[in-house]
């Protein structure tokens, strides 16, 4: 009996120690992630207006969500967010994959290192400063318009103020800012690829493009998948570029979902309605993450 008690005591002690280690982060997780998540889900079902104070809300079930589907601003923000992901992700993946492969195979070693670092730079800069710089570049007499005129486009639009061009202009900034990071990830994966396939391709007299198409691209599939998922997630969260450069305009041309959450909640105080948008965004991200998990666990089994 005594022995048993001693063991129980030891186990209790072990548990106590472990929980002390976990205390700060577990408390943080409950307070700033778990409870907020539940509040979000609940508030999204209410008509809470921040101006009427905490707790002064009516539970309206799914009214917010029903209303959203006839809200043209929401539809625009959803559409823009999806367009953003569908265009920026593949374009930057293709560009960065080609760049990484070409740099890896053909560039002088020293130049390759410098080039990679140079391209990486925008990734670590804050998006507000990047937005400020591109606002200047995009301005009517700015260098970007100048460049386009030099390339023969006699009358380039004012990109950020043009209904058609505003969103593509923001997407270009996104692609530019994320390219170096992706090139770097691809380069790191390239060095880890097995050499023997390339050697046998060399013996068979394969061209560079054939090797790229039939060896490199398939072998890099896991990296491409990873970059696709993270790319989609980050383009679902685009906020700074719209808020600084265009304020969602002109009209609703560059409204994104996070921007819509922000304005609805903190400009118009409609917390319930904004939460509904945030919840939809959450479920969109959830789908992407679940796809990633299924994919990864299938990979591990193999």
């Amino acid at each position: 009996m005594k022995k048993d008690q001693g063991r129980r005591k030891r186990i209790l002690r072990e548990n106590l120690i472990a929980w002390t280690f976990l205390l700060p982060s577990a408390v943080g997780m409950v307070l700033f992630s778990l409870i907020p998540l539940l509040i979000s889900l609940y508030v999204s079902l209410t008509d809470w207006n921040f101006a009427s104070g905490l707790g002064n809300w009516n539970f309206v079930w799914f009214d917010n969500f029903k209303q959203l589907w006839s809200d043209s601003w929401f539809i625009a923000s959803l559409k823009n967010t999806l367009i953003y992901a569908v265009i920026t992700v593949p374009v930057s993946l293709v560009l960065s994959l080609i760049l990484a492969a070409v740099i890896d195979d053909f560039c002088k070693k020293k130049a390759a290192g410098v080039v990679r670092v140079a391209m990486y730079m925008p990734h670590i800069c804050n998006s507000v400063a990047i937005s400020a710089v591109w606002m200047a570049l995009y301005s009517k007499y700015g260098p970007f318009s100048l460049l386009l005129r030099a390339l023969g486009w006699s009358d380039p639009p004012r990109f950020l103020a043009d209904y058609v061009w505003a969103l593509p202009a923001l997407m270009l900034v996104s692609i530019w800012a994320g390219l170096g990071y992706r090139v770097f990830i691809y380069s790191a994966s390239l060095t880890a690829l097995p050499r023997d396939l390339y050697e046998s391709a060399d013996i068979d007299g394969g061209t560079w493009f054939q090797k790229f198409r039939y060896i490199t691209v398939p072998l890099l599939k896991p990296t491409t998948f990873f970059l696709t998922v993270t790319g989609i997630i980050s383009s679902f969260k685009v906020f700074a570029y719209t808020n600084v450069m265009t304020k969602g305009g002109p009209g609703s041309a560059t409204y994104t979902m996070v921007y819509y959450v922000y304005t609805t909640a903190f400009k118009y105080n409609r917390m319930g309605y904004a939460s509904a948008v945030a919840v939809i965004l959450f479920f969109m991200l959830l789908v992407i993450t679940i796809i990633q998990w299924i994919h990864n666990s299938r990979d591990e089994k193999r």
Partner: protein
Amino acid sequence: MKKNAEETVVMKKKLPLRRQAVQWGITIVIVLIAALMVAPFVWMISASFKMQKDVMSIPIKWIPEYFYPDNYFKVLHINAGASTDYHFILSYWNSIKVSTISTVVGVLSALLAGYAFAKLKFRGSNVLFILYLAQMMVPSQLTLIPRFMIFSNLGMTNTHMSLILPKIVTVSSCFMFRQAFLGVPDDLREAARIDGAGEFRIWAQVMVPMVRATMAAQATVQFLESWNSYLDPLVFLSHWRKWTLTVALDQFVSIEGTQYNLTMAASCMAIIPVLLVFLFGQKYFMKGLTVGAVKG
């Protein structure tokens, strides 16, 4: 036979030459592309030293004709003359303060949690681990409104605490540390235990030094994330005294708008220190920012 051998020798010499030409050609093209990508930064620096009327002059003068540092004085408010007070130095200080404290707090708590998940046995560890995993899927954009609700209820909006406190848990860092601690052999722990060390001493003096590389990487990631964060400070900080650099810069840009020489000087001040740190420590910086991205 001899002739044949000669031929192959010639061919071997020729091939590298052609390949070298290709190598040089492509290197030049790639360097040009990289230069084009860096050009916005160069233009930014150059414009920040120009007078307003020279900023958009055609053709672009990459080296300013008149060196005009007054832009920076205006931004820093050393010499009044800009239309509003900017207090950039103050927001600099705020950013340094918030990012440093957030990083220390975040890394420490993740070090503790990662260790517990990797090395300690306790009831509910599996459930808790799954709960942590699940939190990875909750974006901060979703919890923004409830966090605002909580902090405004506690009277804590417009404090730096509202930015620092949530950083006490960075789930991805917890996982990285768990991964790192799993790689440390248990013998070390046993040896320390036999020497009479308690669990906390083992953690602090034996285990933590073993995961220094992960620590550096996670600290870099967390610091940068905090330094560049924009939506949270924008929502939580309403008074200019509390603004971090990103919010101050945003306000500056929306007030000065088309005075590009001023906005470029302000952007330079926000970007250049980070860029310098990056360029000096780039190898280790890039490693830190890409851990977990590349398998094997």
